[in-house]
């Protein structure tokens, strides 16, 4: 029993080592020409623009729920005027980066894994190698960096649409004064403590999801079942790690 645990732990560490080597190769390859800007922009489009709708709709919905729940709770303490602060802080500190990361993992992350896995299964990666092009340079690198860049941008848009949603519910439906909402929001949110931490989180999450989704695709078993398993694994692993990292970042950055 113990030895099985030991072997499992050993396996996990081995895998971790392989991921680290993989990440190292991506970084090495990034600093060599060619720039591959075209591929990067295409990937940024796929990771960012195509996720935009789901992010904004979800952001709006979450903001509205926060507005509603926040109001119902605060009104019991006579503190309904702080709704702006509550909605804003919740979104900026936690909901924005974390929910965006989870949504993007499900949408763009799984797509990346599936695409790379399919390329592996149809020998396209081998084909690239035989043409003396490193698949990590041509395929992986643009996708990983696109994820890293897209995440904070999407997170910010999630937060802003969330605040709009909260405003709509609090001011439009519940009758809080608009100015109070905004000023409570502005007074409570501090760039250094809140916004900077939020951006840091989304960048870290972007790196995490980018790494995991590309690694899983790259190491998938080159069969349909293998690709499917890799895709599921990406979503599960990335989601769990995002949540775990969220705790540690909050604790270490925290006020």
């Amino acid at each position, binding site marked *: 029993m113990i030895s099985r645990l030991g072997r499992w732990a050993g396996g996990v560490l081995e895998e971790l080592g392989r991921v680290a080597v993989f990440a190292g190769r991506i970084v090495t390859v990034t600093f060599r020409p060619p720039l591959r800007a075209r591929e990067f922009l295409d990937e*940024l489009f796929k990771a960012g*623009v195509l996720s935009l709708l789901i992010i904004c709709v979800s952001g709006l919905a979450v903001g509205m729920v926060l507005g509603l729940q926040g109001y119902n709770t605060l009104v019991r303490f006579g503190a309904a005027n702080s709704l702006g602060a509550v909605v804003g802080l919740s979104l900026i500190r936690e909901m924005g980066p974390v929910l965006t990361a989870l949504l993007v993992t499900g949408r763009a992350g799984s797509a990346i894994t599936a695409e790379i896995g399919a390329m592996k299964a149809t020998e396209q990666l081998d084909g690239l190698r035989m043409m003396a092009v490193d698949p990590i340079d041509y395929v992986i690198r643009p996708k990983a960096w696109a994820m890293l860049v897209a995440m904070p941008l999407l997170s910010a848009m999630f937060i802003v649409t969330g605040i709009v949603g909260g405003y709509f519910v609090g001011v439009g439906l519940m009758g809080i004064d608009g100015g109070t909402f905004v000023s409570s929001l*502005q007074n409570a949110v501090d760039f250094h403590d809140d916004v900077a931490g939020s951006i840091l989180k989304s960048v870290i999450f972007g790196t995490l999801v980018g790494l995991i989704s590309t690694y899983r695709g790259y190491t998938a078993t080159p069969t349909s079942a293998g690709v499917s398993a890799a895709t599921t694994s990406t979503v599960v692993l990335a989601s769990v790690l995002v949540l775990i990292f969220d705790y540690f970042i909050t604790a270490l950055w925290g006020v």
Partner: protein
Amino acid sequence: MEGSPTRDFFLGLFVLAGLMALAYMSFSIGGLQYKGTGGLAVFATFDQIAGLKPKAPVEIAGVKVGLVKSIRLDDTYRARVDLDLDKELKLPVDSSAAIVTAGILGDRYIQLTPGAEETYLKAGEQISYTESALVMERLIGKFLVNVQDKSQSKTEQPKADNP
């Protein structure tokens, strides 16, 4: 090698929207200063700051004129609050600073009341007249003890301190 103008257009829009959202979050809401410090630096000491935090706004007649730069304990165990105010602000030497609360449960901020003198405070000088923060618990305690002076206790403020 490929890529259509339409795609690029939406990509550009996306990046722009994202950056604008980030900017809004940082500057408008988060209060990030892009002007940088270099405003009028004065300070004031208080008996009690009770929850005043750095970056809290400083207002005159409800208009924001600066913020709290730092808070520390001085040699006489009073709280020394350093303020970073608008460069062009002319604050008379007999102005007073009070720590007030936004609403009952809101955040603390500093309210300046300009004095009547003709000379103005220069960088590094001290605001002489201060009013410390009201601590809720003390207030309720007073309220309960002085039943007869109910209304008076509520409005009675600690006297202005002299350095």
